[in-house]
């Protein structure tokens, strides 16, 4: 049925806009002369090549000739554009023009869909490179009109749905033509994103890291398929391979995602063109280092309405800054030589395109770059040199304006696409704006005309008194009605002398006919006014900090040489506690420990009465990440938290304020085989990549018990649903991993599987397991599975019943990383006891105390102290549970976890005994850089107040000056824990 409509539609078009070889039954066959010359205009052949007083000659939708001295054929229609300017029409390379998203897949069942809906395609529905949007394309006349009015001539559109979305099509915005002409390219690009397809409810991927892993596996499989190794037909992989040589355009929603996309691309030798977020200014160096071309939105936000101070105080500095800083994004990108195009994507209305672009220009964005970003750069992104310029042979896509296209006062008259004229503002409407002296019936009024085109209006005054009046300017006729106490005076008239004089007939209050005239005053006054206005509101852009939020640093702290004098040093080594000792930190390392140390150029810190310890190591944390669980499969060894580290999390700073310097960011516990970890240093301000340990030991999260068997699901359907099933799942996966590894090692060709690669690493002793566990039965089980399959469990985390099997743990050689005193929050922690750490320790297990909680991780010193209260551990051993012991469990004890010469200079200076409740952190140092300082922190608080106050003033001004505002917004604290199930959007 749908097809029929489509056909009918197509037929009706071919009827009216027949291609030349099509027969006609409508009359005699005629051919229109399309040869047209535009003369006397300023012509931008390209943004860099400007022809003054030039001629543009077009025919059959293309540029025939362009230049200063073009010979105009006799049969050409000539349009004189004296005083006007011609630019190539703009191009939007990220669009969904004319293509509707599929309807959300309806799901009758309330249980999760794990399997794909499609047959003959890839195993995951969200990989849809086979989508060819041509069949869904329907020229959207209304939207086209908006885009044409904004100056666009060509859009690259696609089906905005799925992770791999299929190819784009390049469409000329030519409403008076047919698809036969206006579709310029049917395979113009391939599109990708981190969002799932609405067409399928398939659960995987349930997280961003899952989406990244899926993309990698898809590329692996595509090349395996291309080499002819698959028995089955996979139309998705086939399409992916076919689209390989197209430009790959990756849509992102925030800056971190841009880096993530680029990282995946780099691994496979693909340089994505990235649709950015408008946040690029926040980390411009990293943006530049991607070497990607960008497509940048200009959907600037409105100021917050801060008129209610009680509500206004809830807005975060981060959100307030965004309003102030984002208009400078294009300027920053341009100044850093990032190659980028501009898109209308993200704008609520295309009508705001020019005002936003003008704002960006006001914020210092270069106009020539602006024109490039709308013409030549998008053209080069899609590799089409026939659009975005007016060189001979290119499409005759151009706009005619009254002047500089980026000036607010300029009128865009016409937008020609493929040689077809689209009138935006009639060129015949004269610009009559200005100040006039209006004389009628012996009275002299002052009249001020403003506005554009057909929308020009006038304000009329008699002396200081405003006169009620109506004004219109249509089809070259001026109509004015004056409404005074004495009655109505009606005027009709036209312009004389190129609009500097207006005159015509008038009918006075009694209906008597007379004449009127208005003459333009000298224009200097209004110009002066304008200059004043721009002077009054200088653009102030507040500096970006790293990260760009409250407590961020304007400059990331640098490594210093620091000498801490005369302090009590908790070494976490056999040396124990050293009193009245000096510690020298140099080049990011602990250079010397001793008495009366001296160093030139060192910053000296008096440690008298204070305590110096190694930085705290948290074995189990979920701060600084954008995702925790890839919950949509029972095994997700292919995902890694390293992909989703979020350096903009305030909890990094707060953890530093509690002396934590290293955290293992673990995957959650939603599935037995979880994802890989990220081990990070809390270098507040650095980017994600720099926070992750160099040559990081490889870890993976496993999990047992209630969470993995979906105990609190209303209707869980995923295997396993019991602890019995959990064992078999491990045996199954490791059996398969062994077989995989055997094939790989044999040198035979094999299908690269990231999940199996990871499990094989475990079997080969190259990757360590940190396993979420509670009750003794399951703890015992995993050790037995490990023995049977030939691997070791490195760490049991949580391990609340570890005390019941501590002897078995010691025998297996597995460590225990536990909570100090948590229990009673679910059934499987009924027998959790705070003496657990002490019992395990006494049985010879390496014990750490961890947080699994962004708040507890800022006071792990106190949690360590609880092992003294519960079970009587010694002070030295208690302190090791948060320093050298977790470092050992993480295989980073050669670098951190104790104060020892040669180790990383990750140290904390405390005001008291570090396990005292009264202890406060004075300084936290990571690799010789001071990342937290209690005195500096006080200064930052004041700075935040001051900056907020500045921004509130700016926003109040914005509102007073008629700017749009939006209601205050409170930023919510994210709380990621082991069982947080986030949902990847579609």
């Amino acid at each position, binding site marked *: 049925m749908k097809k029929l409509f489509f056909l009918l539609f197509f037929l009706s078009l071919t009827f009216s806009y027949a291609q030349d070889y099509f027969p006609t039954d409508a009359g005699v066959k005629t051919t229109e002369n399309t040869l047209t010359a535009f003369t006397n205009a300023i012509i931008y052949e390209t943004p860099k090549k400007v022809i003054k007083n030039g001629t543009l000659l077009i025919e059959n939708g293309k540029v025939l000739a362009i230049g200063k001295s073009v010979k105009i054929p006799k049969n050409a229609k000539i349009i004189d554009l004296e005083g006007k300017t011609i630019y190539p029409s703009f191009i939007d390379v990220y669009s969904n023009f004319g293509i509707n998203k599929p309807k959300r897949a309806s799901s009758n069942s309330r249980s999760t869909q794990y399997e794909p809906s499609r047959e003959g395609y890839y195993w995951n529905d969200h990989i849809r490179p086979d989508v060819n949007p041509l069949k869904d394309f329907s020229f959207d006349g209304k939207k086209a009109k908006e885009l044409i009015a904004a100056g666009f001539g060509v859009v690259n559109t696609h089906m905005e749905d799925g992770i791999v979305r299929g190819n784009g099509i390049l469409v000329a915005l030519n409403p008076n033509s047919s698809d036969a002409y206006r579709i310029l390219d049917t395979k113009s690009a391939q599109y990708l994103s981190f969002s799932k397809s609405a067409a399928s409810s398939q659960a995987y991927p349930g997280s961003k890291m899952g989406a990244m892993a899926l993309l990698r596996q898809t590329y692996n499989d595509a090349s395996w398929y291309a080499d002819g190794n698959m028995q089955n037909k996979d139309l998705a992989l086939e399409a992916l391979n076919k689209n390989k040589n197209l430009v790959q355009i990756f849509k992102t929603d925030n800056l971190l995602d841009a880096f993530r996309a680029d990282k995946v691309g780099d691994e496979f030798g693909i340089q994505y063109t990235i649709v950015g977020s408008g946040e690029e200014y926040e980390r411009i160096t990293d943006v530049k280092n991607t070497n990607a071309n960008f497509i940048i939105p200009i959907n600037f936000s409105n100021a917050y309405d801060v008129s*209610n101070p*009680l*509500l206004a*105080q*809830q807005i*975060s*500095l*981060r959100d307030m800054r965004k309003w102030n800083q984002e208009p400078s994004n294009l300027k920053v990108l341009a100044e850093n030589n990032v190659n980028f195009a501009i898109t209308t994507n993200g704008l609520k209305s295309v009508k705001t395109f020019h005002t936003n672009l003008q704002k960006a220009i006001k914020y210092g964005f270069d106009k020539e770059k602006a024109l490039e970003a709308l013409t030549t750069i998008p053209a080069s992104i899609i590799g089409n040199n026939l659009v975005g310029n007016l060189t001979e042979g290119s499409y005759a896509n151009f706009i005619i304006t009254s002047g500089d296209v980026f000036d607010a006062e300029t009128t865009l008259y016409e937008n020609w696409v493929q040689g077809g004229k689209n009138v935006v503002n009639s060129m015949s409407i004269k610009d009559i704006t200005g100040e006039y002296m209006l004389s009628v019936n012996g009275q002299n009024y002052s009249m001020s005309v403003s506005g554009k085109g057909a929308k020009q209006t006038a304000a009329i005054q008699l002396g200081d008194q405003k006169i009620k009046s109506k004004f219109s300017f249509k089809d070259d006729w001026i109509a004015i009605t004056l409404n005074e106490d004495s009655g109505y005076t009606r005027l009709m008239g036209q312009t004389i002398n190129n609009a500097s004089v207006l005159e015509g007939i008038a009918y006075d209050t009694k209906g008597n006919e007379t004449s009127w005239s208005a003459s333009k005053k000298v224009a200097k006054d209004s110009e002066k006014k304008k200059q004043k206005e721009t002077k009054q509101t200088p653009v102030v852009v507040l500096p970006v900090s790293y990260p760009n*939020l*409250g407590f961020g640093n304007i400059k990331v702290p640098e490594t210093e040489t620091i000498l801490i004098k005369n302090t009590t040093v908790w070494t976490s080594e056999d040396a124990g506690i050293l009193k009245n000792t000096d510690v020298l930190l140099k080049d990011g390392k602990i250079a010397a420990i001793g008495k009366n140390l001296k160093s030139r150029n060192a910053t000296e810190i008096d440690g008298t009465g204070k305590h110096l310890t190694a930085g705290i190591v948290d074995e189990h944390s979920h701060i600084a990440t954008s995702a925790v669980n890839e919950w949509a499969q029972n095994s997700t060894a292919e995902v890694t938290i390293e992909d989703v580290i979020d350096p903009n999390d*305030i*909890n990094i*700073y*707060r953890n530093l*304020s509690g002396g934590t310097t290293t955290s293992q960011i673990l995957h959650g516990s939603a599935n037995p085989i979880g994802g890989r970890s990220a081990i990070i240093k809390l270098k507040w301000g650095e980017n994600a990549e720099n926070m992750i340990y160099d040559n990081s030991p490889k870890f993976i999260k496993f999990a047992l018990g*209630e969470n993995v068997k979906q*105990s*609190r699901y209303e209707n869980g359907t995923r295997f396993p649903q019991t602890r019995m099933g959990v064992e078999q799942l491990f045996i199954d996966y490791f059996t398969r991993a062994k077989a995989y590894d055997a094939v790989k090692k044999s040198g035979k060709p094999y299908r690269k599987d990231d999940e199996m690669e990871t499990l094989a690493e475990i079997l080969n002793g190259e990757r360590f397991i940190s396993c979420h566990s509670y009750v003794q039965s399951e703890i015992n089980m995993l050790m037995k599975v490990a023995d049977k399959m030939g691997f070791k469990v490195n760490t049991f985390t949580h391990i609340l019943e570890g*005390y019941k099997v*501590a*002897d078995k743990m010691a025998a297996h050689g597995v460590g225990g990383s536990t909570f100090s*005193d*948590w*229990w*009673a*929050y*679910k*059934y499987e922690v*009924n027998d959790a*006891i*705070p*003496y657990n750490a002490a*019992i395990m320790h*006494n049985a010879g297990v390496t014990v750490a105390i961890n947080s699994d909680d*962004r*708040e*507890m991780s*800022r*006071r792990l010193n*106190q949690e360590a*102290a*609880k092992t*003294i*209260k*519960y*079970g009587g551990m010694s*002070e030295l051993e208690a302190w090791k549970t948060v320093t050298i012991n977790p470092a050992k469990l993480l295989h980073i004890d050669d670098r951190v976890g104790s104060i020892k010469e040669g180790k990383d200079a990750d140290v904390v200076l405390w005001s008291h005994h570090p*396990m005292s*409740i*009264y*202890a*406060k952190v004075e300084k936290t140092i990571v690799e010789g850089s001071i990342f937290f300082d209690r005195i500096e922190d006080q200064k930052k608080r004041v700075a935040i107040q001051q900056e*907020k106050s500045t921004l509130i003033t700016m926003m109040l001004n914005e509102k007073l000056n008629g700017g749009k505002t939006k*209601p*205050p*917004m*409170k*930023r*919510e*604290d994210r709380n990621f824990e082991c069982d947080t199930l986030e949902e990847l959007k579609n």
Partner: protein
Amino acid sequence: MKKTLYSLLFFFLVGNSIAQQTPADTQTMPFSIEGATAHLGNGKVIENSLIIFSDGKLTFVGSAMNKIARQGTIIDAKNKHVYPGFIATNATLGLVEIDAVKASDDEDEIGPVNPHIRSIIAYNAESKVVESMRPNGVLMAQITPRGGIISGTSSVVQLDAWNWEDAAIKTDDGIHMNWPGSFKRGRWWLGEDPAMKPDTKYAENIQEIKGYLENAKLYLSNTNVEKHLPYEATAGLFDGSKRLYVHVDGLKEITDAVTIAKQLGVKKVTIVRAAEADKVTELLKKHNVSVIINRPHRNPDNEDDAYDASYTIAKTLNDAGIVVSVGMEGQMERMNTRNIPFYAGTFAAHGLEKEEAVKLITLNAAKIIGIDAFAGSLEVGKDATLFISEGDALEMTGNILTDAFIQGRKISLETHQTKLWKRYSNKYKSK
């Protein structure tokens, strides 16, 4: 079948062996504690103290230098510390046993307005979580219902009892109200922006609360009207026999809540949680409003808040002359209630004088929940509810109890957890 039977039997036996501690008998013989540093709970300290109690009441609190006769069992507490039993306000002990097991959850009754719902009824005196409080010195608690706009009525219990009747030391001390927030999360499932934006219905919501209490007042002033249990329950708010606890965080909301409560003639008002109470100290002082500050071990509310915002608030309020105690509300609140001494310690670390910090969880708490006439400090005539600690009880490393008494009864410091500790320590020792 046989197997099931065995395992059932086994379960029964094990279950029995780890049952709750038997509550201690009424005090028959006096005790004298000598030589300890006594923290009286009212801000005062007596070094080398002598404390005597009999029949459940303190009969002497003073210096050991006093040459008066020691009575009954003499406990040498040299180098140790004595404190009044710590009090947890705004707690839910005994209302839920295991958070994730719905069947064990009795904290939140259906319906938004439940002043007549009484927490004491569901209080499980034999909860394993309750007994785990005692080794940390937490000996009394205000048991508070949760949820809705008016959650219900709280009562105060001591933590060594056979049943709820036995446990209660003050029933129905006050009514708890959850004040609406002026910000509201967008309903994303209706396609709204999920961000927190000002709630346009905020004014309406607070008018509803006001209207409800006005109606209650009207009902109470009329005779011959049909019985209305919820209205009936609010009577104490207006005659001063019940306190109104308003659970509220924001500056604006606190201001509205206090203003409206006073307009309605509510005699005693306490604000609970009160994250931004430090910004309205003048108002609180003016209306004699006390504060149950939420545990400091929580994240600051806003990204730009100081990292120690939740640590320093107690000092600010205390300095302003406001009566402050420490409450529990939020994640894992029950099992964490035993950490209340360390919450007080954290407030002390961040500016509060140490004895003032002790006061938060002793006399101040007693004053707010209305038991200060007989509990909350070591003063002659008051209940002998106290404990002896090896060290500073606000320190993890010092909070190690040797003895504890509730109303003079020497209570067990064993718990389900200490038993497991001993059992498994012995298991490895014997090998």
